[in-house]
């Protein structure tokens, strides 16, 4: 039995804010892995953009030379002009097409192979050594070779993206497949499932959520290789747009194009996030 403290003796309950202050601000905000108040998270998130914009604005005023650092309004004007008068939409469309095509080809090959490598030691022992070696060769180092072999057409660009994505992705998927707990498969065997049924009813679905995560990460890398390929010769594309703008010393357009890539990346990431949430509602969220 716990006795009630008479109301007159009880101190009024301190608010969360007061309790935090008593605990000390440092302890509240700088304890490793400790959640901070939601308002503080929001403030810091917006704050980072405020800092970037301020630095940029101050910098452009101090440097006062649009050849080095154009002001924000100048970049904004250039961005609108690009869409309206420079056929920037064509460039974006071409780049997006190459990313999607190159990435799909790479993923369509890397995911099945990675799953097989993760589940069958026979397949892994055969493929892993060369893939491991090639993975360390920077994809951009292949570009000259590809131009000689394939010319400056789409094949060369898609192959470069393929090289950049395939070898990384296949090993990531292999790891994912390898991590599927044995017990999950063993339970299925003891429930009478054949090896084939265990493979497609247990093993495959067990890997799906993480495979989508791996795709989400690797599609970001595809952009790097695409721009490199386009810088070195293409009729159209965001990379081409950047290299042409450089010839005309249009820093404002270059920055606007780079920001566009960032926005496209953000859109891709959001799409993958939505797919993940829609297709795998059962996944336990580790991060908020």
């Amino acid at each position, binding site marked *: 039995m716990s006795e009630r403290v008479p109301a007159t003796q009880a101190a009024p309950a301190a608010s969360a804010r007061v309790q935090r202050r008593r605990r000390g601000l440092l302890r509240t905000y700088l304890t490793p892995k400790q959640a901070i108040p939601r308002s503080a998270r929001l403030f810091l998130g917006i704050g980072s953009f405020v800092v970037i914009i301020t630095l940029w604005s101050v910098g452009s005023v101090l440097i006062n030379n649009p050849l080095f650092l154009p002001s924000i309004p100048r970049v904004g004007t250039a961005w609108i002009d690009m869409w309206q008068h420079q056929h920037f939409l064509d460039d974006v469309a071409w780049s997006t097409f190459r990313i999607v095509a190159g990435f799909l080809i790479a993923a369509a090959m890397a995911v099945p192979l990675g799953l097989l490598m993760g589940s069958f030691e026979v397949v892994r022992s055969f493929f892993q050594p060369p893939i491991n070696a090639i993975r360390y060769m920077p994809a951009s180092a292949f570009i000259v070779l590809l131009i000689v072999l394939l010319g400056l057409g789409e094949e060369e660009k898609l192959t470069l993206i393929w090289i950049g994505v395939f070898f990384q992705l296949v090993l990531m998927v292999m790891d994912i497949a390898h991590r599927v707990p044995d017990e999950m498969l063993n339970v299925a065997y003891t429930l*009478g499932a054949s090896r084939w049924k265990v493979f497609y009813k247990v093993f495959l679905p067990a890997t799906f959520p993480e495979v989508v995560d791996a795709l989400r990460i690797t599609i970001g890398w595809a952009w790097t290789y695409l721009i490199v390929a386009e810088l070195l010769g293409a009729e159209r594309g965001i990379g081409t747009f950047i290299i042409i703008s450089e010839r005309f010393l249009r820093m404002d357009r270059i920055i606007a194009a780079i920001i566009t890539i960032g926005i496209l990346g953000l859109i891709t990431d959001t799409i993958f996030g939505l797919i993940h949430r829609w297709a795998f509602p059962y996944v336990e969220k580790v991060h908020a």
Partner: protein
Amino acid sequence: MSEIRFVDVAMRYPTRRGEVRALQQISLAVPDGQFACIVGPSGCGKSTLLSIAAGLILPTEGEVLVDGKPAYSPGADRGMVFQSYSLYPWLSVRRNIEFGLEVKRTPKAERARQSGELIRLMKLDGFAEAFPKALSGGMKQRVAIARALANDPEVLLMDEPFGALDALTRQIMQEMLTDLWQRYRKTVLFVTHDIDEAIFLGDVIYIMTNRPGRIRTTLNVDLPRPRNFEMVTSPRFAELRSQVVGIIHEESMKAVESELARA
């Protein structure tokens, strides 16, 4: 009639430091409808024994017979429940329970009837369409047990199924399991290191030795059936416990000493 029998089962692993003898000369028979518990110090190979019974690994010597037929590979006649639940997170509670029936191509209506019954029996009402992530540890293990039972196996193999649960939940699960057994009368082989659990649940307890694992003692538990939790405080229960504790303690000490000798 469904009995499971181990005939001179031995298990040895080659390692870099030489051969490890995990199990030696295991011969035992669990007759139809008996609840047999295996207890022993950790690392004595009791889980290995269960995996051999399931057909998941092959013994170096000897064999396991289910109703006289050798069990070389896993099959639906020997259902297994693991400590880690191993539910399929992408399937609802109901579809997890129906997994074995689905594999067998049981008609949908029949599957639904059986899973419905087990959901009620396991007190999972209202969670049929929930994903495992929404369940507590005890509920997850009830789903895993229901999944094994739905398949109507000849023998139920349980590998420390309540080992990851807190003490209170474990007690409730033990009561539920003993009631279930009373109802279905399956042949059960239950591995645990919890002595009270073994006495409360088992008809017979096999106490294993430290590595190489052997059956050191077989103990009949003569507590009346059906069992309830008041029996835990009975004098007979205390007697049985002190017997088991004594033997296990001796074996555990041997284990510690052999580890020291190796170091």
